[in-house]
């Protein structure tokens, strides 16, 4: 007899029929669940059909099969999950192969492949992956039960909530899978224990178990009886598991990969446009049915892994925001209003006509977000927390539901084109204090149009850096000009606050004015301006090459237009700004500039895509403090992180808001004297050996 095993061995005919009936029931329940889920998603807003389906599917397949996203920042859990994933897949496929053999290949095609070398390979493969599955599950159990990382703690930052249901669900899921694996191995062990044919050594673990049982006296008929019982238990539990997939945490197995395929690759980086003539009900997310179907789907992909919760700077410093809890709240609302629980009447229910803000989402949760993209960056299943928050904010802003300080700032930006309320004429005032004239690019052509930005033009603390950059450019012989009072706030943060109308207004005016100028490319010294000019202005007809000053400085150093007169020799650390780094992937140029001018760079523990936000983004710099408790603010926490590196001279930034936030933070965190702030341009200026400017204002005062 060749190497094989018999299916349904020892089962009477009625039992086999019953088995197939159970399969049908299981599949039916599964499909019903999928149908209900699909119906839930269909209640959401439809988007334009997604493009390039082929590319998307291939890309998603690569990401899912290599676990590229899951493995980030926690290799242990990543490999554990990889083992579970492939273990489960292979075992599931194994059953499928068997079914294919029994129900199709043999009866219909007369083809029996399930014997001989194939069988041996099959047995080995399944055993190995079965062990992998168990190992993976054990890794996860240890992480949850013993290691207990903070991100798996379900405590909410904004309210007390009993989440034992979640914890129970997690352990049930692990337990279910473990039980399946266990019964599968027991089943195999009992089967082999009956008569222990030699070839079954190809299933090493089963072989061990089988011999073990035989050694205990459990063989022959006794083992066979045990096998039958175990077979039913394993089978029914397996069918139960399959049926339950759409109704439990297991749904992420479907929703996750699908979301990876359909998500917006530029989520958060390029926010969705609001069509002209939009009515109040079209603006943003007010009701749960306003969510796009893709966002509704993504809510079910969440596995509560907590990576976003851990990465979020607001959460880390005591703000009432956890990206994870936001997604879970939305999921509960969607389920309670439109989903399976709503269909079954299982609470907590949510009224589909009730606004999501204030229940379950609190406004302060939304306003706490700094739009730093750390959550979106790290989510293993591609959930888009940031655009969802912006959409929720859009509805609040449209209804005027925001704090007075933010309202005043938005009104100020509309009235004076800048967030400081300074007269428009003051925009180019910083240039008047220079010993040379800065071209007015409205009147004369220049190679580079320097879009300076609000903070760099008008915030007193940033003038040194802005004037420094101007002097550097002049030294390098760069032909540049500025827009003077024609320049307005670029709108990046206005858009992220949710005032889409004001954003469109600013963008329209900026595009119009810039288009009238004669230049080759645009330089910005503010990553926020850089980001929106580069990625979002093309929508409104503004298509130009846009560079950040760190990129231009590198170019000038590399082409020899700038030659450092001396090497700085300072020990520095560099903070990656969110909008330059995570948003646009510009990590290396500032580092290369620092290297070229002879600074010794010591990396921040959280650097590049893991950089920790200063707290100013998303319009937070225009809002009052929402943080609870006495803990450090995000910028203070970051300075603590830097000072802990030891022996640093400078904390280097290349964003004007970072300048403002970190100058304050160095003082308020008690580290004044321990470290100094430098903007990148200031360091380059120093290395060029140019004398410092005497500020014109000081001169005037002296005369009085």
């Amino acid at each position, binding site marked *: 007899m060749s190497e094989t095993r018999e299916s349904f061995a020892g089962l009477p005919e009625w039992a086999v029929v019953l088995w197939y009936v159970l399969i049908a029931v299981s599949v039916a329940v599964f499909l019903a669940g999928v149908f209900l889920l699909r119906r839930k998603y269909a209640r959401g807003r439809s988007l334009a059909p997604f493009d390039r389906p082929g590319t998307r599917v291939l890309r998603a397949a690569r990401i899912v099969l290599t676990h590229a996203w899951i493995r980030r920042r926690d290799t242990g859990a990543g490999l554990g999950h990889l083992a579970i994933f492939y273990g489960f897949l292979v075992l599931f496929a194994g059953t499928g192969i068997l079914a294919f053999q029994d129900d199709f290949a043999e009866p219909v095609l007369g083809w029996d492949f399930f014997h001989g070398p194939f069988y041996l390979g099959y047995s080995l493969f399944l055993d190995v992956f079965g062990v992998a599955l168990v190992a993976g599950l054990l890794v996860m159990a240890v992480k949850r039960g013993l290691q207990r990382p903070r991100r798996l703690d379900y405590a909410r930052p904004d309210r007390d909530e009993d989440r034992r249901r979640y914890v129970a669900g997690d352990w049930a899921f692990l337990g279910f899978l473990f039980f399946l694996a266990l019964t599968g191995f027991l089943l195999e062990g009992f089967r082999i224990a009956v008569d222990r044919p030699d070839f079954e050594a190809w299933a090493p673990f089963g072989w061990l178990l089988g011999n073990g049982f035989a050694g205990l006296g459990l063989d022959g008929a006794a083992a066979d009886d045990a096998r039958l019982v175990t077979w039913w238990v394993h089978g029914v539990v397996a069918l139960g598991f399959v049926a339950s997939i759409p109704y439990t945490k297991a749904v992420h197995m479907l929703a996750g990969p699908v979301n990876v395929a359909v998500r917006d690759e530029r989520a958060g980086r390029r926010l969705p446009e609001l069509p002209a003539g939009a009515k109040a009900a079209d603006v943003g997310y007010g009701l749960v049915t306003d969510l796009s179907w893709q966002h509704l789907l993504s809510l079910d992909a969440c596995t509560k892994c907590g990576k976003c919760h851990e990465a979020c700077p607001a959460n880390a410093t005591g703000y009432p925001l956890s990206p994870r809890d936001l997604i879970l709240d939305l999921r509960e609302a969607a389920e309670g209003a439109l989903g399976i629980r709503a269909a079954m009447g299982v609470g907590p229910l949510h009224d589909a006509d009730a606004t999501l803000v204030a229940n379950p989402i609190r406004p302060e949760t939304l306003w706490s977000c700094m739009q730093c993209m750390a959550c979106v960056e790290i989510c293993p299943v591609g959930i888009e927390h940031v655009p969802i928050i912006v959409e929720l904010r859009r509805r609040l802003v449209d209804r005027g539901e925001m704090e*007075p*300080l933010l309202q005043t700032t938005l009104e100020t930006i509309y009235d004076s084109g800048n967030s400081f309320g300074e007269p428009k004429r003051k925009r180019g005032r910083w240039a008047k204090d220079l010993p040379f004239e800065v071209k007015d690019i409205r009147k004369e052509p220049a190679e580079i149009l320097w879009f300076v930005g609000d903070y760099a033009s008008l915030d*007193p603390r940033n003038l040194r850096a802005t004037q420094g950059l101007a002097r550097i450019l002049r030294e390098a012989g760069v032909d540049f000009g500025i827009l003077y009072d024609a320049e307005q706030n670029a709108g990046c943060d206005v858009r992220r606050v949710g005032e889409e109308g004001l954003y469109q207004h600013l963008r329209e005016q900026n595009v119009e004015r810039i288009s009238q100028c004669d230049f080759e490319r645009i330089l910005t010294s503010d990553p926020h301006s850089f980001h929106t000019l580069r990625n979002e202005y093309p929508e409104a007809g503004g298509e130009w090459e846009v560079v950040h000053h760190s990129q231009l400085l590198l170019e000038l150093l590399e082409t020899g237009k700038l030659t450092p007169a001396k090497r700085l020799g300072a020990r520095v650390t560099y903070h990656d700004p969110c909008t330059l780094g995570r948003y646009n992937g510009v990590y290396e140029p500032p580092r290369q500039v620092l290297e070229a001018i002879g600074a010794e760079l010591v990396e921040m523990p959280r650097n590049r895509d893991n950089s920790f936000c200063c707290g100013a983004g998303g319009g937070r710099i225009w809002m*009052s*403090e929402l943080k609870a408790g006495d803990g450090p603010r995000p910028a203070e926490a970051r300075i603590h992180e830097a000072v802990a590196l030891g022996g640093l001279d400078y904390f280097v930034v290349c964003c004007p808001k970072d300048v403002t936030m970190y100058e304050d933070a160095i*003082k308020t965190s008690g580290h004044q004297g321990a470290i100094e702030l430098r903007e990148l341009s200031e360091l380059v200026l120093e290395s060029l050996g140019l004398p410092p400017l005497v500020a014109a*204002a000081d001169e005037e*005062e002296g005369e009085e």
Partner: protein
Amino acid sequence: MTVLVIAEHVRGQVRDVTFELVTAAGELGGPVTVAVIARDPAALDVNVAGVDEIVNVAVEAAEFESDVWQRAVEALVAERKPQVVLLGFTVNSMGYGPALAAKLGLGFAGDVHGLALEGEAVIATRSFYGSKVSAELEFPGAAGVVLLLRPTAWTPAEGPGSATVSAFAAPAGPSRARHLELVEAAAASDVDIAQADFLLSIGRGIGERENVELFEALAAKLGATLSVSRPIVDAGWMPSSRQVGQSGKTVKPKVYLAFGISGAVQHLAGMKGSGTIVAVNTDPEAAIFGVAHYGAVADLFDVAEELEKLL
């Protein structure tokens, strides 16, 4: 050049601005007549040096009512035909002064802080564009002019006067906006900033509500009482009992420290008389530097922080 001054009073007390008007009237030459419109005008003493005539106008209203005052002044103007009618730039005057000019076809200007006479013509000086520029106004072709003068812009007349006193019967008529009662805005339990020797005052420049605590703490350490300018009260961050200014309290402490206050005219009116005024503001052009004795163009948070360290 006959000048008619309308006395300003509340709760049986004549307000300082009345005497400032007398001084201003004197600058215009000509006889100065002060009209006292009240339920019991004789009980209000406006007989100071510089007043030539006092006209008592008894009316039914217990306190100011715009129709009553306007009717009385209209009648007076019809009879006396003064070239200039002077009122204080006060809440009461805002209720009828401009109406008077409109009804009688007279010239008008409010918040006047300078007066000059060129021949028979009155030239009034006032500010525009948030006090950044001044302008000289003339009133060509007007039979007379109603001017509302800025309180504290003139020194109050003092010294015993020898004015003739007469009574004037105002015509009767409806009062369509009737005084019901006077209400103290502030809670009685709070601090009286007008009694403090040392005030630390904060304004719009402090940014957000959170920072009020910062300055409260600083004030406590300094031994100062915290006071505020109007925007802070409007925003609801402090009660109006803490407000310094025309619509708040007038204060004259030994030391007045102003942080982040630009110096709107109404605020200045409330603290100009302080012994030593020190202002800290990032805007070198802020009007408060005009009345301050000492100033610093600096970031108020930086200075506040440094002060804390020294205490």
